[in-house]
């Protein structure tokens, strides 16, 4: 009998949703435990960082790393787990593309801390106290100057995007790992098609947008394409694999699966799409229609600011 696989799970700057996504495979988790030992999983088992440091290099078979790199602790653990693992999988959109917290890269670290501890509406902090890194013998990790995707800090073998990743994708990834039947390094473990490919809604080849709408004050028709109704649905610029979950419940796609293999910049592709849908040939009217897009970056780069062409142009790997 061969030795069991050694798996590790880690959360860096993450909300915890990815941990739940792992449990979304339900009773199949028993099959996982049958073939694999979980050697490190801070949310579920009590193993300290020092225990990981004591492991031999490359002794973990696969590490699923969720969350982006926002603090020194995140970066340190990313490097540590890279050294200890044979295969490192970026798990979830934060780890693959920087995620929703990547929007923090629109402001500097100082601006973010100022907003969080001084000027936010719910803050009552008359003495303007900000967190200190050192107090007596206690040291806490500093916040990094920006938010990074995992592959901007260490080498990544595979990507499993989604916010959180769909249970079917998680399970097929685990199966592929168990059977050793993995694709080439650097592959995204999801289909290379767009969400529109899976979307059941009716589409017409017509320009229809006279005004961009938002979900909070607009009830879209359940059978027609959301884009044609004026909601910004990221479907055309987003990878499938989610079984069109959001559009099936009448919500526009947010783009969490990231772009397909052929695309460099998800937001740029979406701008192309929207340009083809605005129903006006008059430059002044177009300006007016475009002004109804509230927060273009927050909509077009919901999960991808860290990996957008403009923002990552200064990053050199390691």
């Amino acid at each position: 009998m061969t030795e069991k696989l050694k798996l590790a799970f880690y959360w860096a700057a993450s909300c915890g949703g990815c941990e739940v996504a792992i449990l979304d495979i339900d009773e199949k988790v028993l099959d996982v435990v049958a073939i694999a030992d979980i050697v490190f999983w801070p949310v579920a088992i009590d193993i300290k960082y020092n225990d990981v440091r004591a492991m031999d290099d490359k002794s973990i078979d696969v590490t699923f790393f969720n969350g982006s790199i926002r603090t020194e602790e995140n970066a340190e653990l990313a490097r540590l787990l890279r050294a200890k693992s044979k295969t490192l999988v970026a798990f979830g959109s934060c780890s693959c593309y920087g995620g929703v917290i990547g929007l923090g890269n629109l402001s500097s670290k100082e601006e973010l801390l100022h907003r969080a501890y001084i000027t936010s509406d719910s803050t009552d902090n008359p003495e303007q106290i900000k967190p200190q890194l050192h107090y007596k013998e206690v040291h806490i990790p500093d916040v990094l100057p920006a938010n990074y995707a995992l592959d901007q800090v260490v080498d990544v073998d595979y990507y499993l995007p989604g916010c959180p990743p769909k249970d079917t994708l998680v399970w097929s990834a685990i199966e592929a790992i168990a059977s050793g039947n993995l694709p080439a390094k650097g592959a995204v473990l999801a289909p290379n098609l767009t969400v529109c490919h899976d979307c059941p809604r009716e589409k017409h080849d017509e320009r229809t947008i006279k005004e961009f709408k938002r979900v909070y004050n607009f009830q879209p028709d359940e059978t027609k394409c959301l884009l044609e109704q004026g909601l910004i649905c990221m479907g055309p610029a987003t990878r499938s694999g989610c079984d069109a979950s959001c559009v099936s419940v009448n919500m526009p796609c947010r783009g969490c699966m990231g772009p397909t293999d052929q695309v460099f910049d998800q937001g740029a592709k979406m701008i192309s799409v929207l340009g083809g849908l605005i129903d006006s040939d008059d430059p002044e009217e177009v300006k007016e229609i475009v002004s109804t897009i509230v927060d273009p970056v927050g909509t077009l780069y919901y999960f991808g600011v860290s990996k957008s062409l403009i923002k990552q142009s200064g990053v050199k790997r390691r």
Partner: protein
Amino acid sequence: MVVTDEKTIENTDWEPRIVGFLCRWCSYAGADLAGISRLDYPPNSIFIKVPCTGRVDPTFVLKAFADGADAVFISGCHLGDCHYIEGNYKTMRRFEILKETLKQLGIHERRFQLTWISASEAQKLKEFLTSMTSSIKELGPIQLPILAPLQKEDKQDD
């Protein structure tokens, strides 16, 4: 809050680098005419010939900025004159969305411009390039609020 680029470097040697996407039917022919008419215009722009401004994917513009362009412009046929009937209308709509997005990403709106120049308007091209170059000189070199590379330092303190 959006971090915008600021004029900080007072370096007299610095010259702006501008990338221009010119359509094959109107603006590029206009640039040819400017050449054979011996018109003087600032040499800061690199022209890229495209079949139609409708071919200019927003990715091209972002890539130009990411690779160090101080400004980017797109120039095509006048609205209504497009060789492919509606290519420049598409560009006009994309331009507005892209401009708003770039503003939010920290790129000054004067650094990204759209103009319509026909094959006979060499003089207009000259004036456009002159005014664009001087306005970019005023703004100074682009300073993208980019991600600083993360330093590699393996701290092993326990």
